[in-house]
């Protein structure tokens, strides 16, 4: 079974590998854009302008960053504990579902109570959903890679049923979607004239929270020990199964929060595909960010910017949006190759010195 070992190598080496990975992405993408007869430079310019050019585009980038960041923070905990979860997507969907239920059926509550309540409902939903995967792994040894993928399908199609012919479909019964959430459950804008909502603040707080969890609580040390060497952890009396379940649940809590915020801040009603594959991109974000909250924040911004910038690039240059998917794919590929790239660059740097030393 493949196990993703969080690397604890020096920061410089990590950045080196990351830098090289991004450089390769840019080179390969440029070639692809050039092949389609467009100027790579113009395309990248359009993309950056589209992502950060105006107040509104920056806000759009931010709101796309929020769910990516939250889900990736959850995965950071999970991967650090040695679990390769692919289940954020399903957990986001369940989080959204729970927020919808609270937002619709408890809509009479005042906003300062309803908003946190719906968020907490989303967190509980995501956490419980993830706990299924955690128990399957810890108690029965079912690979978390497989069971999280399967639970994604279950979650997605269950919600799809609820809103297309089930009890949550809107009163008019026309579209496969739920009623609108009570306005008291909508997140307010924090940047007038844009869709940038209070979820950004929640995400920022979460970054700090995950950092504190991993490095300032004994639980974080314990989880990292389990992730790096479960046998040594067990030998020292750390309960491996319990930590695995807990890590899975925590990742679900953050994914559920992402789902709730996406729903309360953007869509305001439950519909198919509201999660926009954030859960899958989050895996790349977590890895690209080096499984560190700070790195994950940067990586989430990068992926958020890609999502908004891509549209502009398409409009101004007629470069297909699917190219952005190619870029994302390449990023993941090169990031996974990081270790190889890193040792390659280090060799490149040191080979001359080494040769000189041998001669001397």
């Amino acid at each position, binding site marked *: 079974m493949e196990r993703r070992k969080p690397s604890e190598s020096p920061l410089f080496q990590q950045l080196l590998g990351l830098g090289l990975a991004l450089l390769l992405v840019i080179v390969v993408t440029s070639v692809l854009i050039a092949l389609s007869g467009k100027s790579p430079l113009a395309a990248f310019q359009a993309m950056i302008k589209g992502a950060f050019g105006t107040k509104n585009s920056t806000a759009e980038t931010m709101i796309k960053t929020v769910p990516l960041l939250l889900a990736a923070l959850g995965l950071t905990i999970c991967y650090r504990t040695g679990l390769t979860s692919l289940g954020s997507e399903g957990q986001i969907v369940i989080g959204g579902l729970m927020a919808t239920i609270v937002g619709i059926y408890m809509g009479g509550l005042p906003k300062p109570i309803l908003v946190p309540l719906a968020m907490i409902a989303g967190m509980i939903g995501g956490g419980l959903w993830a706990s299924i995967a955690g128990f399957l792994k810890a108690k029965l040894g079912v690979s978390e890679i497989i069971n999280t993928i399967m639970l994604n399908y279950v979650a997605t199609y269950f919600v799809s049923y609820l809103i297309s012919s089930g009890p949550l479909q809107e009163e008019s019964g026309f579209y496969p979607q739920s009623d609108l959430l009570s306005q008291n459950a909508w997140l307010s804008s924090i940047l007038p004239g844009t869709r940038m909502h209070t979820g950004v603040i929640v995400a920022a707080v979460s970054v700090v929270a995950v950092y504190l969890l991993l490095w300032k609580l004994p639980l974080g040390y314990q989880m990292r020990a389990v992730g*790096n060497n479960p*046998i040594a952890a067990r*030998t020292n009396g750390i309960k491996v199964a319990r930590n695995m379940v807990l890590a899975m649940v925590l990742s679900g809590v953050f994914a559920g929060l992402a789902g709730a915020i996406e729903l309360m801040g953007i869509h305001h009603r439950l519909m198919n595909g509201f999660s926009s594959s954030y859960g899958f991109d989050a895996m790349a974000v977590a890895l690209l960010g080096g499984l560190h909250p700070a790195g994950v924040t940067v990586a989430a911004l990068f992926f958020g910017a890609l999502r908004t910038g891509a549209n502009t690039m398409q409009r101004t240059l007629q470069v297909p949006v699917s190219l952005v998917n190619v870029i994302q794919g390449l990023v993941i590929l090169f990031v996974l190759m990081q270790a190889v790239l890193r040792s390659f660059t280090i060799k490149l740097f040191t080979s001359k010195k080494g040769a000189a030393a041998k001669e001397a």
Partner: protein
Amino acid sequence: MGEKVLEMRNVTKRFGRLIANDKVNFDLEKGEVHALLGENGAGKTTLMNCLYGIYSPEEGEILLRGQPLALNGPKDAIAHNIGMVHQHFMLVPPLTVLQNIVLGQECRLSPMKLDRARREVEELCRLYGFQLDLDTKVADLSVGAQQRVELVKALYRGADILILDEPTAVLTPTEVEGLFEILRQFVSQGKSIIIISHKLWEVKQISNRVTVLRSGAAVSTVFTADVEESDLADMMVGKKVSLQYEKTPVKSQEAIFEMRNVNVTGSQRASSLKDLSLHICKGEILGIAGVDGNGQLELSEAVMGLAEIQSGQVFFDGEEITRVPTRRRIERGFAHIPEERMTQGLVMNFSASENMILNCYDRPPFTKNHIFDNRAVRENGKKLVEEYDVRPRSPEAAARSFSGGNQQKVIIAREFSQDPKLVVAVQPTRGLDIGASEFVHHKLLERKEQGAGVLLISADLDEVLAVSDRVLVINEGEIMGEFIPGTISYGDIGLMMGGTRQGKKEGDPA
């Protein structure tokens, strides 16, 4: 007898700086059972792997019926009618017996070829009186039956020379009898057999000649009928220059730790603990001697609360702790130097200082008011690398970057800095050089002086004798006898390690 079918001359095999076989001479006559006897790590299996083409020796030559033999892998060995049954069977569980037997011989198994193979295998089984259903899946067979499949497989490939690596390790006593019966038949058909073993009584029972290996070198070759088991034990264990330590007498009669009739299911039948009882006094080092795989791991795990105790009771400081989890035991003063330093002992990606708190990270000073204090961790690391002479003195370097001896020091620093009342040390000096070994021993003796009980489990008899105040010999999960080091001979210890109960007559199996 008399005709030499095989001869190995001055065979030397090195692994890096380690010499696994040092100028070993060995020969095999037609129609004999030749036993290869020695402790773990004496080089028995390495020597046979050279003969089977798995390793190629650096020096020396192998002669088969007088002709020099160059082997480039087991395929060549098989082509020269040499067969080997490994200690861990090389069978494919979901395939049937017949499929396993012909595996590797036929690339494409057309029904016709398979039919012919079936007839040949059936003929073989008839000849030697094997009862095997060729269409049963190997996964459904008992261990003894699986071994018979391995034997038939070797025969089907035309083996005249059969190498058996510890064939009885996994068998029950009746199955052992059955195996010996089969081996005698082979020999009467003119085949020659090499059997690797460290069990004296079975060597005595089955072999015509014995070659004893010690530390990679062949000590001597004798006719089995000419020697007693105790002579073999002497040859096997040898009288090496041993470590010497000043031992102070045990002051207390009070038990710090006690086990009563403990049963634990092990990974193998031989390693399960069977009604095992023992006690360790305050300020005493209790040594456990025995051949690897006889329940030592299970014993250490039972003490630490890592293995499930089927029945029996465990006491610490007068209190029953049979069901107390590992963590609580550590908090009460248990320390554990595990057998596998790299997998069980350390988190290799963590720094030395992070590893030094693996057993106490959630207690002050490392966790105060639920907050984990990295600075305290680093300071502790800085202090302990000095105190325990970890080199290089870089507590923030990853554990993987230290040498084996210094990794062991990191573990010892962690365990002993918590001022333990009971220390469980399993093979604490395996793979360490003399200097590092002495360091570890001194630390154990120091603990004892301070009143802790120490359980020293080691397959290195010299170590056990040099450090312990009292020694128990374990065999197949049972205590064979108890003695004070220096009061009985190596031969007697060897007998107990081989499965003879203390005070029993020689020659009785178990």
